[in-house]
């Protein structure tokens, strides 16, 4: 298979073993655990998800581990090749500081943090054998070559337009390239039956996440936004045993269903949309919770939207399965890296109506041009539809917590 990265100027992987910084990273995670432990109502089996998220022992692995980014890489293919997929987007502020020391420039905190996690020779990221990176934004596109110095990386190119008929074949060919790359490096052939089985498992995850979201809309206080994100992210961002996770999540759903809300739990109901919020960067979720509002639904690729669309199968030939995967992962995505944001706008408005929400919080990461530029249309459309909204732009650091708090409280006061 043709090499994507020309290795003429390949550098050896560099590590920056800074024990102080590692302590800081740990401290940030523990702070978030503490903050979440004080949430009023938590599912009884939340400890399972917390352990999944915080267990430092996950470096051990029984199968090859493939690191991937974003929401657009078909996990089922990785699973069908007897490997475990782990999403490597990092949300730790200290990691982003380390990354900044090496990767200079005005790069988004997510990229810096992810790179920072690679600089730590002992991190989860470095236990991966291969990496798959969708060319979603400029930062990720250039990071592919940089990460190729660390581990063999595959750049999964995305079409610029979600134009089904112009780019369907292009995306399908990219998926085939991905399959070839993984098959070559893992020395396993992709089997139709096993792929079908993996798809069915992921469909179950999709159904459970949807059910969780629906139940949260009906009984918002039963599960707070931060716990919802924790449950979803523990299965995506850590090597998780999917079967166990599915069982535990079903228990959470049962608990939500039997929840009896107190009479005074009438929070302002909000929809959250915008840039990914990765553990432990739950700053905004904590603030909203502390201000007394409830994020009932969200369109974040690290939250409710991550497993929202199921893979829909019609025919069961290998090609047809790969087509179905591409359709769901690439063409149904609401990421702003595509030229039209209509699907995201539709989703926000649809969620707002279905959830009976009172306002929208539009969150963008500092230095992310994609989300910043989408704000223009979102703000004007929401204004025209008389939907109250709040724009927040922030990065991973906690220094602007109070300033964000003022804005959120002022926004809530206007509802």
């Amino acid at each position, binding site marked *: 298979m043709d090499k994507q990265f020309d290795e003429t100027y390949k550098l050896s992987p560099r590590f920056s073993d800074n024990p102080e910084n590692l302590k800081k990273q740990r401290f940030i995670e523990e702070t978030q655990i503490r903050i979440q432990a004080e949430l009023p109502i938590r599912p009884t089996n939340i400890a399972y998800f917390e352990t999944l998220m915080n267990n430092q022992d996950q470096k051990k692995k029984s199968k090859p581990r493939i690191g991937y980014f974003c929401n657009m890489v078909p996990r089922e293919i990785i699973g069908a090749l007897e490997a475990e997929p782990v999403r490597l987007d990092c949300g730790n502020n200290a990691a982003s500081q380390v990354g900044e020391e090496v990767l200079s420039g005005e790069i988004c905190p997510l990229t810096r943090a992810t790179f920072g996690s690679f600089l730590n020779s002992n991190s989860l990221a470095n236990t991966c054998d291969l990496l798959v990176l969708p060319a979603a934004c400029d930062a990720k596109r250039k990071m592919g070559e940089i990460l190729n110095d660390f581990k063999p990386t595959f750049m999964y190119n995305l079409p610029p337009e979600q134009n089904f008929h112009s780019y369907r074949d292009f995306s399908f060919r990219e998926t085939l390239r991905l399959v070839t790359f993984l098959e070559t490096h893992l020395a396993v052939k992709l089997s139709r039956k096993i792929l079908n089985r993996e798809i069915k498992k992921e469909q179950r995850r999709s159904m459970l996440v949807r059910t969780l979201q629906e139940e949260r809309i009906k009984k918002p206080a039963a599960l707070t936004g931060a716990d919802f994100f924790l449950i979803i992210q523990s299965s995506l961002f850590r090597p998780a045993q999917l079967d166990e996770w599915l069982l535990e999540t079903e228990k959470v759903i049962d608990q939500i269903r039997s929840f009896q809300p107190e009479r005074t739990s009438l929070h302002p109901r909000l929809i959250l949309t915008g840039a990914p919020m990765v553990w432990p960067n739950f700053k905004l979720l904590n603030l909203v919770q502390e201000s007394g509002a409830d994020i009932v639904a969200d369109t974040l690729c690290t939250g409710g939207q991550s497993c929202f669309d199921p893979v829909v199968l019609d025919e069961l030939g290998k090609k047809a399965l790969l087509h179905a995967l591409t359709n769901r992962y690439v063409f149904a995505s609401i990421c702003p890296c595509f030229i039209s944001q209509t699907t995201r706008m539709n989703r926000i408005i649809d969620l707002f109506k279905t959830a009976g929400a009172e306002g929208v919080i539009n969150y963008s990461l500092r230095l992310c041009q994609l989300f910043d530029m989408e704000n223009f249309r979102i703000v004007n459309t929401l204004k025209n539809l008389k939907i109250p909204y709040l724009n927040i732009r922030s990065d991973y650091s906690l220094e*602007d917590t*109070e*300033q964000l708090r*003022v*804005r959120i*409280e*002022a926004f809530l*006061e*206007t509802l």
Partner: protein
Amino acid sequence: MITAGIDIGSTTSKAVILEEDTILGQVVQPSRILPSDSAHEVFEKCCAANGIESSQVTAVAVTRYGRRLAKFGDLVITEIRACGLGAKLVDSPKGKIHTIIDVGGQDTKIITLADDGSVEEFAMNDKCAAGTGRFLEMLANKLELNYEEFVKAALQSDTMIQMNSTCTVFAESEVISLLARGIDKNDIAAAVHNAIADRIGSMVRRVGQKEVVCFTGGGARNLALTKALEGNLNKRLYIPDSPQTMIALGAALAAREKLKKRGVT
């Protein structure tokens, strides 16, 4: 019914005591280190200065930094809402206030109000000193003038010099280089005011500037800034009689509205 509003700022704290629509008394004084101390002090001082017993006050609302930490009062609101409410009582003779520009020592707020006086949209600049009163203070320092002299100097100038820096720190260096080139201090002072007016003006245009536009906060007492801002926005700005205490006034109003909602008279 008598209510009070307390505005705990980082440099100064203000208190206003309100009965129906009359202001019984207002006090501005430097803040203490702990917000609770500031709150207590300013409230007691205001009561004492106007011959009111603290027990006569039915409800107190606290706002701005430390509003939650002060552990004082019956209601906590953000300064944005307080600002919006304050505008209700200081209605200009020209009509209802729809836009408020609040330039404080550490932050600047632009708030647009709907016809019924509720907050529609707001923007805050609280992350960067440029555009706040701090900008003026630091540059006044660099010109070796105190604040009043600085303002007077700016008013005396009629030459337009453009300052390039948007950052306070770099602006300081630019001021020094202008001085070294022999530019008149008055002109520099005016340029500094224009620079800050530029930043505030672009914030206003981003949010909206429906008439009547009210200019308040500590910065509103600065005539040079008012002049520069009016020039930038090409509008007459309405300045209330006591711009510094408008937020505390709004807080007192919020306390009263809460009581009314509860059915207390």
